[in-house]
């Protein structure tokens, strides 16, 4: 998977599962303030990403530090590298 494909899979999965507007989904969009997620959605976000990429996410500290869509991209790209 190329970096661009990974980012596209992240964005399309989150758009579908959280009913987000793709036009709002820029890398610097704050997932809480701009995309309307809240702390309760974090677990669902983890499950959606686990399902899309077929890995387990156990890095609770890193997940808690996520603020922007770009943070999610970087987090997943790092995981994909670790798993390849």
């Amino acid at each position: 998977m190329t970096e661009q494909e990974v980012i596209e899979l992240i964005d399309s999965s989150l758009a579908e599962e959280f009913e987000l507007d793709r036009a709002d989904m820029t890398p610097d969009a704050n997932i809480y303030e701009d995309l309307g997620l809240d702390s309760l959605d974090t677990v669902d976000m983890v499950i959606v990403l686990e399902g899309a990429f077929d890995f387990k996410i156990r890095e609770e500290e890193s997940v808690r530090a996520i603020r922007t869509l770009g943070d999610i991209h970087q987090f997943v790209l790092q995981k994909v590298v670790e798993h390849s």
Partner: protein
Amino acid sequence: MQQDVIVIGSGLSGLTSALLLARSGRKVLVLEQHARPAPVVNGFSRQGLYFDSGFHYVGGLGKGGAFRPLFRHLGLDRKLELFPFAADRFDQLKIVSTGETYALPVGFAEIRRELGALFPQQREKIDRYIGEIETTWSRFPYLDLNTDIADYAMQTVHGESLKERLGEFAETPELLSLLSMHSLLYGLSPEMAPFTLNAQVAGSYYHSAHGIRGGGRALVAALLELLDEAGVEVRCGAEVTSIDAEAATVSGVTLADGEQLQATEVVATLNPALLPQLLQPGQLRPAYRKRLAGLKQTCSAYIVFARSAQAIESLQKSNLFVQPQPGLLAANPDCPLRERAYYLAAAGQEQNGGHGVIGIIPAHVDEVADWVDAGPQRSPAYRQHKERIGAELLALFADNNPELAGLELLELATPLTLHDYSLAPQGAVYGVGRFLGQYNPHPMTRLRGLFLSGQAIAAPGLLGTVVSSYLTCGSILGHEQLRGEIRTCH
């Protein structure tokens, strides 16, 4: 009359949640689909014998027990009489292949001593393992008022499995059996069970094991009395068909007969996998809806309710776990009946004079798949299936335990019976399981004013469901308020 809160379901978590919310000053209405409250826990009578169908024994209520302050806070200590299980053998394990029966005594020191004597070469590891259970079990949220609730929940997702933890401490198959046998009480295999869940369930019984005089029926009656004192109405025969919302906030529920009831908060205690069916598609995000619908359920069971001509001495104030072969004990229905581990208890310890026997053996809903859609009026073929399974199970019990020769079958519950009473998908005996790696739902939902409670939120059993009610009501009222009240009950 207008109510502030509607509680859906009158099981233990529904009744407990209603009580906590009513005492905070809210007007609470409990809705139950069945004709009588708490149909699973209430038990039933056949031919003069009372049988418990949901409640069998409770841990952690002995002197210094971490469950006691909650019991006192609810007022159950005033309404119920407890009796201790046998100090030298509250639970027994019989291994069929070797013919050996082992007894667990009450108390962590006593268990260390007993297991150390049985397995002297593993004494030091046994000491450390039982020590871990002793410190872990009472860290369960609300048993320990300082536990970080969110962190604890994560341990059951990402922590070690019971199998992994035991691998460091126990080698002998018989010791593995004894240390994993309580998995039958939460319905997960040791590979899939979080160590912390096993510690909470097994540890509460290691601490102390009690019966309730009058059984589950007395427990439900006590909760109903407390609810009556608190001004809560419990309406039976009230099937909720939808949870209603306006502007992303709960507004009430609609019943099967079309009646609409308004409330600003709704606590749903049904199996959370069923929740999406009660909501309009747009009310929950797809990610959350799929997560709820996809939650994994525990296995189902056959439950034998039988009469014995003579009193069964070995089950007096004691339970018997039976395992075909030594090794990790799992609640596993994926093998022939005779290869499954099972659980035996006296029915109505104090009332029936030792003549009532309950046997619970894991089962899969597929075993009764032919009759799933038949509705309550099931066919003669289903009755024949029940008779055949009942006869097989009585023969199995008798072969394994000479004392149980000559039992008379009075009733058999199948996965379909469990589904009829609990509404759990696949007749799941403990509902949604706390499988390792699975994110069980939080009491707060994506819909403002809608909360979840029940065994999926915390753990099964009286202890687990009561704690789930505190977690839910703490999410509504503020955990610090509830914790403050409990501190005065220590």
